[in-house]
């Protein structure tokens, strides 16, 4: 497949995630949108890894593994991030009984 297709698909997914972040007020949904954005990036990474693999197959049979391993690490980080993030959201809910980020305006003061 032309790499362009993957590129645009990832971009579209990424942007959808971004729009979600911008338009929603629910912290959990925003969090999920961020996951979506990460996944869009993951997809692109895999696509590029395969692109490089195809291109440099003759030189080195294992070219492109880095990209996929990178995706793996991203997932690791994402998982850790989700656990901490959700813990924060739970705590926030416990304190202000809402997950509306509108109330998180402490930065103003």
């Amino acid at each position, binding site marked *: 497949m032309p790499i362009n297709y993957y590129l645009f698909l990832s971009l579209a997914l990424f942007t959808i995630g971004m729009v979600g*972040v911008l338009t929603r007020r629910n912290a959990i949904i925003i969090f999920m949108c961020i996951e979506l954005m990460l996944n869009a990036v993951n997809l692109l990474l895999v696509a590029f890894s395969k692109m490089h693999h195809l291109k440099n197959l003759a030189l080195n049979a294992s070219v492109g593994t880095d990209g996929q391993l990178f995706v793996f690490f991203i997932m690791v980080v994402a998982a850790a991030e989700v656990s901490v993030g959700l813990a924060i959201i739970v705590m926030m809910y416990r304190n202000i009984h809402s997950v509306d980020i509108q109330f998180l305006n402490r930065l103003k003061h």
Partner: protein
Amino acid sequence: MFSFPNIAYFIPLLPLLGFLVNGLGRKHLSKGAIAWIGSGVLALAFAASLVVFLNLPSGGPTLLNAFDFIRIGELRIPFAFQLDALSSLFLLIITGIGFLIHVYSSAYMHEESAEHYGRYFAYLNLFIFSMLLLVMGANYVIMFIGWEGVGLCSYLLIGYWFRKPAYTQAANKAFVMNRVGDLAFLIAIFWLIARTGSVNFVDLPAALSSLSSSDITWITMLLFVGATGKSAQIPLYTWLPDAMAGPTPVSALIHAATMVTAGIYMIARSNLLYTAAPLTLNVIAVIGIATALLAASIAIRQNDIKKVLAYSTVSQLGFMFLAIGAGAYGAAVFHVMTHAFFKALLFLGSGSVIHAMSGEQDIRRMGGLKKVLPITYFTFLIGCIAIAGIPPFSGFFSKDAILLSAFLKSPILYGVALFTALLTAFYMFRMFFLTFGGTFRGTDEQKHHLHESPLAMTLPLMVLAVLSVIGGWVGIPELFLHGGERLIEFLSPVIPVVEGHAISHSTEYLLMGLSTGLVLSVIFFAWTRYRQYRSEESSAPFARLLENKWYVDELYQTAIVQPLHRFGGWLRSFFEPKIVDGLIQGVGRSIRYISQQIRLLQSGQTGNYALWMVISIVVILSIQFFVRK
């Protein structure tokens, strides 16, 4: 060291020494010591001046170079003294009359405490020092130093009784008005430096060729403005009557005999320039005669004995400027000399009267003092006759010389000058009769106190009276005495004698007879009128106008002082804080306002931050990809 010309150094240094000793030691010295030191240095200075006068070589001036005051490249302003006929004559007048007045002061000021007594003599000595600098200076800058110095001393002495606000106001007024003139003087000096590169008097003849006629006109005009300040001419004369706030001997010394004649001296010094500037001479003549007339008219209706004398001084100075305007510098200097004698005499006499009257200065409350103050009466009479111009008293010869020069310049000037001379005789004798004639009109307490002044005061009066009689004889015209006009001849190295406009003897006799006859009749008129003065004089509108000095002070006040004052206040309380500072503060305030507005963007909402981030990313990427191509 003690021989000519080096002895001249002592002339200014001695009063300076007196100033330092009296000034620094005023708390430790006794009054007697102060008076002796103050007068002693003057006596020595007078002796030194005499030595200079007698040893003066004929011909060119003798220059004494002390050190370089300012020397930058080609520009050289030495601290130098110039000894010649003109300056040596002035030296004699200043130190001589100065000495007499110091002696007089030692008695007149005796009621002051020792500390203030010392202060008084220190100021007086400092004044003499400055005046000597002015006269001896070999260039305009040194002259200017003395010029400002005498202004300073005048300021200090007018405000000598500093507890009275009116006196210190008068002192300020005198200084500031003098400063106006000084500014013009300074600009004239700059002009001279710019065109000729030198300010020395000895370079003037050579410099004349490098000056264009407009340059000369400007320079002479500016110098003349400077002279109007110091010599109390229109428009800068109003300070002089106010300056009578100072002690009377000060008025005699500074505001009659010496300082106020500095303007005449300066112009006589620069006579080469003035001769080359006919326009300026005309202006000077007009200003001089106008001042003389104006001041004389005011003097008629003044009742303060010192104010009358003050206006008379302004008027006499006007005469001197008239002489200068007519090109008769010698006559002007002659009148300076005789005027110094009789005006000092009159002021000191008035001081003696005031002394006797326990400080009373209003002539309406005097009268009949003839019997109690015989010496004062007699000497005062001599002074009055001298100023009125009756032969053979000194005033006659000098005034006659001026009238003659005015006649040669223009008959109209002569007419006005003659009229002014008659006014002079009138107001002087009005004052004389009011003071000494008739019966005493003061309080009983004053009457009880009346006494003739001590010898230290009457002796100077007598000396001056003698001088007032004979002082004019050095300038007896050729008409009466062959080989007369010795003064003009003596001054000829400095002031070239202009030949060629002699008039016939008969005309000259006629003019003299006319003026003498008219003066005598005016005196008679004054005698009939004021012999038995009793009550207020009529207050016709014109008389009130004169009494109020033509409202010139009020005019200055409303036209110049008040607006400036108000403008300054407006600047201070409105323009500065609101406009200038307001602009600066406005910058600060607008920045604060903008920050306030921008602060609202910081809603604290993470969502908004994210939005801004995205928008910024879009913008940056757009620039990155599409603009920078």
